[in-house]
């Protein structure tokens, strides 16, 4: 890549990590477990979701190994079903949903709005404890023999026909749901009430806007999932007859309730990721995000429309043809704000001054893969083609492009971007650029063949498949090994950098957000005194004037 860089580090021979910071303020396990500090809770979250990502990722590896051959050669069909179910449950509820909001969002949102902490620090800690309880319940489920409903818990399969640990998994997700509701609630209150003087709504970084939109979805959508899971548990234990036709229930009702949450959940996962991309693209092209207002409102538009498209998961399930028509049209409408965002990011580069540090590489990866993920979503949103493509590997490839190619790329971009702020140290640049490229290549090798498999008709969730699909599956598994290396590398070098990374200083990227105008790692109170926002978001000229002033006053 180009030798030019915006990284400006302090003189390494004299620089030190500030003595007083949120990491060093108190020591001991209790000071962490009873903390109210949003940055410490974010750190706890980061460690826990990395742990669950590791488990979920290992399960994905098992799935790909099993699919190397057409027969069930590595594990029995039952085991395979449990493995993909646990992979889905862990990745969706214990990794993707909390990934950006509860870690990066938790860490930077209070600083971005110029506050000392989230509005409700104890609720924030409670949400982490709920997450951990849910995590233990999932681990208990796995240890006790697992569950094989698929992460979608389709009734009556889940309520009547399976003899596995549906109840403990359902309750785990119920608890995890409350963790997510509390996080969302906390963000909404903080963004409304805790903005510093001068921080108007349209001066907020776009990361805050997108997390705000996601929080609305969390607060309004998750209770529906919670009640659905309670009904599944009651149906299973007491046969209350809500979903199971054998007791007079309606299985389609379950689909409506489940997708009423689980479609917006997709936006809960992707919107905060989009926020990361806005920050990163702006910073590394030294430009205000092109059409700030359009990008901000497109987040809200996605959140609002996102609530009215759930039945596009049910086009072949016997909803009326006219209902399918309405939901298909709304689905097309929700695709538009995503297209707007992609083009706005691309035009942010126009006449910028671009450098290619790791967060930017991940952001480019996001833009390419999310475009593919989004476009293939239109294939599924159009009722006609959905008939052929749904429930096949096409849909698996589609949501992995959005969730892994989009969201995970955004998460890694954000982790690298805010790592110097979080730890006070830089990650090693060359190897991390290498990891970003490896991830991109491995990802495409893994998931692109699955589009072709899906078009050929290979159904999802098959432990065994007809032999003519093998070649493409071998490709996919080979790609997954590359992808695995791409994910292992950051875990290794980021850990290494905790001790050996270069001292970052306050603002290594020359970024404009308020979080960059304080020391790294920040004080427990974030800022020495309450900041006053006297400029627009992404105002790089303000930053330059600021620096000149400093030079003048020091000189």
């Amino acid at each position, binding site marked *: 890549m180009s030798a030019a860089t915006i990284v400006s580090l302090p003189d390494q021979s004299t620089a030190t990590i500030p003595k007083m910071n949120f990491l060093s303020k108190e020591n001991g396990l209790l000071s962490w477990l009873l903390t109210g500090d949003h940055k410490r809770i974010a750190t706890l979250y980061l460690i826990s979701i990395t742990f669950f990502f590791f488990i979920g990722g290992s399960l994905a590896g098992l799935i790909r190994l099993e699919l190397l051959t057409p027969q069930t050669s590595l594990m029995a069909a039952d085991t395979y079903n449990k493995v993909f179910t646990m992979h889905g449950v862990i990745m969706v509820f214990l990794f993707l949903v909390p990934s950006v909001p509860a870690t990066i969002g938790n860490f930077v949102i209070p600083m971005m709005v110029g506050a000392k902490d989230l509005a409700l620090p104890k609720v924030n800690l409670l949400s982490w404890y709920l997450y951990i309880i849910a995590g233990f319940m999932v681990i208990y489920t796995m240890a006790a023999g697992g569950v094989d409903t698929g992460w979608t818990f*389709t009734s009556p399969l889940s309520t009547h026909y399976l003899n596995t640990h549906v109840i403990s998994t359902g309750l785990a997700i119920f608890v995890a749901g409350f963790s997510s509701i509390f996080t969302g609630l906390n963000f909404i209150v903080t963004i409304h009430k805790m903005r510093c003087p001068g921080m108007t709504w349209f001066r907020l970084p776009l990361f805050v806007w997108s997390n705000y939109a996601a929080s609305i979805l969390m607060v309004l959508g998750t209770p529906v999932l919670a009640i659905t899971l309670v009904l599944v548990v009651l149906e299973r234990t007491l046969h209350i007859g809500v979903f199971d036709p054998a007791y007079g229930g309606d299985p389609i009702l379950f689909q409506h309730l489940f997708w009423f949450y689980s479609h917006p959940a997709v936006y809960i996962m992707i919107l905060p990721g989009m926020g990361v991309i806005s920050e990163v693209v702006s910073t590394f092209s030294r430009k205000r995000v092109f059409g700030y207002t359009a990008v901000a409102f497109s987040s809200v538009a996605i959140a609002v429309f996102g609530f009215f498209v759930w039945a596009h998961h049910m086009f072949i399930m016997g909803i009326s043809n006219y209902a399918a028509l309405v939901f298909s049209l709304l689905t097309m409408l929700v*695709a538009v704000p995503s297209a707007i965002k992609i083009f706005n990011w691309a035009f942010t580069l126009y006449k910028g001054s671009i450098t290619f540090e790791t967060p930017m590489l991940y952001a480019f990866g996001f833009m390419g893969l999310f475009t593919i993920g989004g476009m293939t979503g239109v294939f599924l949103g159009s009722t006609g083609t959905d008939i052929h493509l749904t429930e096949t590997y096409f849909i698996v490839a589609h949501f992995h492009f959005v969730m892994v190619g989009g969201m995970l790329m955004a998460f890694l971009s954000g982790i690298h971007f805010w790592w110097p702020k979080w730890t006070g140290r830089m990650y090693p640049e060359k190897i991390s650029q290498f990891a970003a490229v490896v991830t991109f290549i491995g990802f495409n090798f893994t998931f692109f063949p699955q589009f072709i498999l899906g078009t050929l008709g290979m159904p999802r969730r098959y432990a065994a498949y007809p032999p003519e699909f093998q070649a493409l599956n071998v490709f996919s598994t080979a790609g997954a090994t590359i992808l695995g290396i791409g994910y292992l590398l950051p875990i290794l070098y980021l850990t290494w950098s905790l001790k050996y990374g270069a001292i970052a200083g306050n603002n290594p990227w020359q970024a404009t957000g308020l979080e960059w105008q304080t020391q790294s790692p920040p004080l427990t109170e974030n800022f020495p005194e309450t900041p006053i926002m006297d400029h627009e978001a992404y105002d790089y000229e303000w930053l330059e004037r600021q620096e000149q002033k400093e030079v003048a006053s020091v000189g």
Partner: protein
Amino acid sequence: MDHISPVLWQFLQKWLTHFALFPPEASKIAPEMDALYFFMVLVSLVGLTLVVLLIVGFSILYSKTRHPHAVQIEGSTILEATWTIIPLGLFLIMFVWGALLYFRIYTPPANAMNIYVVGKQWMWKVEHPGGQHEINALHVPTGRPIQLTLISQDVFHSFSIPAFRVKREAIPGRYTTVWFEATTPGTYHLFCTQYCGTNHSQMIGDVVVMTPDDFRKWLQSSTSGNSLAQDGERLFASLSCSACHNTRPDARGPSLANVYDSRLTLSTGETITADDAYLRQAILNPSQHITQGYAPIMPTYQGQVSEEGVVALVEYIKNLDSDYRVQQTLNTTDLVPQSQGSKAATPGQAPAAQKEVKP
């Protein structure tokens, strides 16, 4: 090729011989579906190329080495309107085009031949109107619209024929329909695509498309002796349905001749059309479906008749255009309840008598 590992060699051989990139087109709808599919692929490629060109182009033109000072731009309403309206227009084209296909695939023509499909863990049972039964296979002729009426006996299943580009969920407790017209003889995959438990991936089979002549031969060679309606008639008699559903003046249930597709007024005052779904509900859940003027005395047959049995009964009632045969069965069934009743009465009385004796 000693230096190539045998595993790799085997894989390469497979790669060269068994490698599909696109499914066969074997139904009338398939080429139309593929036209939309390739239109979408084209739009996606153009869109993706555009995004990649913008990113790569700007990255080269405005890299820091070449362009050290960024020029601040707020945005541009015209540009933003362009990339709002053009994608919206394209998406709306895909929406309308897709909806047209969707309505065609899920609206069977009136002259379609109806085949019933019952899904259960983990097999597909196919019931032809001529009484041919199949498991995990479906034989159909070319050049004739075929309607499938699907139902599941337990959990959600999904009946998918990729070569025909059709798929429909088999749902417990309600009928769903889909239709197709096969064009090319051959054997194609049949998959269950909705996860349905342990052996989900074994719930597969073959769809055999035959020329009309071959199909006729197949029908003759695989007949079970009775048509589906005859199976239904036998069940109708053995369940004593005709004891009430007859034309006698004191009949306790409505006559079922020509009831199919007619408008009925229920005891709730509601008017409905007596279609497959209604007939099924009226058999399994009769107290909710009482025809006006009759007492709610019919017992439920839930759990007593399998979905295949219900399918046979529905097929029988569908084809019932006079009460003549019902009257005929009535003469025999009149005797059956009495003889059964007397049989039942004797052992019934005996324990009662014993009870009286014992204490």
